[in-house]
C-alpha cells in the first residue's frame, strides 16, 4: 500500500517536470475543484433552478462574472455546476468502457484462434460506427437523459480499450517472464490477472486519460444536439445550444461553456501525453554505461 502511494507520488513529481503535462494537470485540477466546490465557489448557487427573467442576457459585470443567460441565471455559477455533470459523465462512461473493454482485450490477447478473432472483429464493428451517430441512435430510441448519454458513450468507447489491451497482451506474451511463469505451471487466469494486467496498466491509464477528453467532447456534442440531460441541468453542450439564437450579441453565453469544454478536453489530452512519457521511461531503466 505504501509502495503504491510512493509510486503515485513519484509519478506526479516526474509529471510536474514536463511543462505541457503540468498544464494538463492544472487544468484537470481546476475542473475537479470547480465540480467539488461548486456550491462554495458559485456566486449564485441557486441559479441552477431559479429564474430571474429580469436579469436575462446581461453582460459580464461585477455581479455576474460571466454574464447571465436567457433565463437570467448566472452563467459562471451554472458553469461550475456543469462541471459536475461533465466529470460524472466522463468517469462513468470511461469506467464502463474499461470494465467492458479490458476483459475483452485480455481474453482476445491471451487466446489465439477463433475466440480472439471473433472478439476483435466485434470490436472492429463497433469502431467502424461513428460514435456520435450511434449515440444519437441510442438516445433517440431511449429518450434524452443523463443515463442514456452515459450508456451511449460506454457502448461506443470500449473498443479502444479492447484494442490497446489486446495489442499489449500479445506483445507481453513474448516476454520471458510470462513464458517462464507459464512454464512454472501458472494457470491462464493467474497469468492474465496477476502478471499481464499490472504490466499493461500504463497504456491503459494513458488511454483512459485521453478517453476522458474524447468522451467529454462527445457528451457535449450530444448535449448540443439536445440528446443529453434535459433542462434545467446546466450541461455545457446544451448551454451552447441554447445560446445559438442570441449570438453574436450575447457572446459570453456561448464563449464560457465553449472555453470550458476546450480547456477540459485539452487538459486531459495533455495529461495523457504526459503520463505516457512518465510511465514508459520509468519502466525502461537506464543502467550505468554498458561497455563491451
Amino acid at each position: 500500500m505504501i509502495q503504491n502511494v510512493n509510486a503515485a507520488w513519484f509519478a506526479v513529481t516526474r509529471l510536474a517536470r514536463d511543462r505541457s503535462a503540468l498544464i494538463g494537470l492544472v487544468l484537470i485540477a481546476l475542473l475537479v475543484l470547480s465540480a467539488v466546490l461548486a456550491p462554495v465557489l458559485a456566486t449564485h448557487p441557486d441559479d441552477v433552478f431559479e429564474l430571474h427573467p429580469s436579469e436575462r442576457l446581461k453582460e459580464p459585470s461585477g455581479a455576474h462574472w460571466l454574464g447571465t443567460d436567457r433565463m437570467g441565471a448566472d452563467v459562471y455559477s451554472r458553469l461550475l455546476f456543469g462541471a459536475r455533470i461533465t466529470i460524472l459523465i466522463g468517469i462513468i462512461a470511461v469506467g464502463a468502457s474499461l470494465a467492458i473493454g479490458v476483459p475483452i482485450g485480455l481474453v482476445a490477447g491471451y487466446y489465439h484462434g477463433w475466440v480472439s478473432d471473433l472478439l476483435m472483429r466485434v470490436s472492429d464493428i463497433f469502431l467502424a460506427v461513428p460514435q456520435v451517430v450511434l449515440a444519437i441512435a441510442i438516445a433517440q430510441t431511449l429518450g434524452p437523459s443523463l443515463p442514456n448519454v452515459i450508456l451511449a458513450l460506454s457502448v461506443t468507447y470500449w473498443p479502444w480499450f479492447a484494442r490497446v489491451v489486446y495489442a499489449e497482451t500479445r506483445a507481453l506474451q513474448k516476454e520471458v517472464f510470462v513464458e517462464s511463469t507459464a512454464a512454472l505451471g501458472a494457470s491462464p487466469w493467474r497469468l492474465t490477472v496477476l502478471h499481464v494486467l499490472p504490466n499493461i496498466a500504463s497504456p491503459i491509464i494513458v488511454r483512459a486519460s485521453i478517453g476522458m477528453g474524447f468522451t467529454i467532447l462527445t457528451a457535449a456534442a450530444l448535449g448540443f444536439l439536445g440528446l443529453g440531460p434535459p433542462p434545467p441541468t446546466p450541461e455545457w453542450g446544451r448551454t451552447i445550444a441554447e445560446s445559438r439564437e442570441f449570438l453574436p450579441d450575447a457572446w459570453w453565453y456561448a464563449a464560457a461553456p465553449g472555453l470550458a469544454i476546450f480547456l477540459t478536453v485539452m487538459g486531459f489530452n495533455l495529461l495523457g501525453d504526459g503520463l505516457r512519457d512518465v510511465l514508459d521511461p520509468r519502466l525502461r531503466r537506464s543502467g550505468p554505461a554498458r561497455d563491451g
Partner: protein
Amino acid sequence: MSVPAPPLLEVVDLARHFPLRNAFGRRVGWLRAVDGVSLEVRPGETLGLVGESGCGKSTLGKTVMGIHTPTAGDIRFAGREIGRLSRRERRAVAKDLQYVYQDPGASLDPRWKIGPSLHEPLRIHTTLSRAERDREVRAILAAVGLPDAHLDLYPHELSGGQQRRVGLARILTLRPRLVILDEPTSGLDVSVQASVLKLFRSLQEAFALTYVFISHDLSVVRAMCAGIAVMYLGKIVELGPTTRVFETPRHPYTQSLLAAVPRIGGRRVTQDFALEGEPPNPGDVPSGCRFRTRCPLAQARCAAEEPPLRPLDGRTVACHFA
C-alpha cells in the same frame, strides 16, 4: 550387483516441425527443427546438448519442457508419457521438470517483489501455509547464496548476477527432479561463467538434480557434463560419454566442431581448420545425411541413405564412414 536406475527422461524419435509460410500465409514447407531425436537421461546425470545455431538443441529443450508440442515421437518422464497431455495435466508436471532460460533474471516479473515471485510456484503447486512457504523460500534463498533482505526488493534493484540467482531459486522452490538449462552461460564473461557453473554444481549436489545442459560452448559442456549429444540440423550425429567424444571424435562434424574451438596456447587452430561453407537452410535440408554438403568423407551413399545412429567405440555415431 545393483540394477541401474531406469532413465528419468526418455525421448524417442522426437520431432518438432514448424510450418514455413510465404507472404500470403500459405504453407510452403517445413522447418524440421527437431527431426527424429532419441536419447535417455538417468537420475543424477548431466547430459550436454551441443551444436551450432539452427541445430535444434533449444527447440528440443523447449519441446521436452512442453513449451512446444511435439509433431511426432514420445517423451517419457519418470516412466510416464508427457508429450500428449492436456494443458492442465502438463502444468502438474512442471513440479518435477523445469526449464531455466538463458537469462534466469528475465524470468522475474519486473513489477513483483522477489518475495512474492518466490512464493508463487509454491502457491501454484502446493497447499502449504504461508509460514511453511516462507520457511521454504528462505531455505532456497540461502542455498543460492542470497540474503533474506532481498525478499523485499524488486528485480531491478538487484545486480544481474543476483537476478540470475533469484531466477534459479524460483525454480528450485519446486524441488524439481530434472532441470533443462538453456544456454545458461551464453554471453557471460569467463570469470562470471565460472561462478555460475560453480553454483550449478553445488545446486546439483544439494538438491539431487538431473541436468540437461544445452550450450554451444564446448568447453563448458566438457566441464559440466558426463554425457554429450552433438546435434546438426535437427538430428543427433554423435552421442556418448564426454571424455570419449572429446578425445576421439568419430563423426566428421564433431571433429570439425572440436577443431574450430580457439585455444589459448599452442598452435593456432585456424591454421589447420578446414571446414568450408555454411550450414544449409534448415527449411531445406539435404537428402540422406544432412552433413554431406560440407563433409570431407561424403560419397554417393550419403546422399541416398540417411545414416542411423550405430554404436562405435563406446558411443553412437550417425555416419556411414566413421
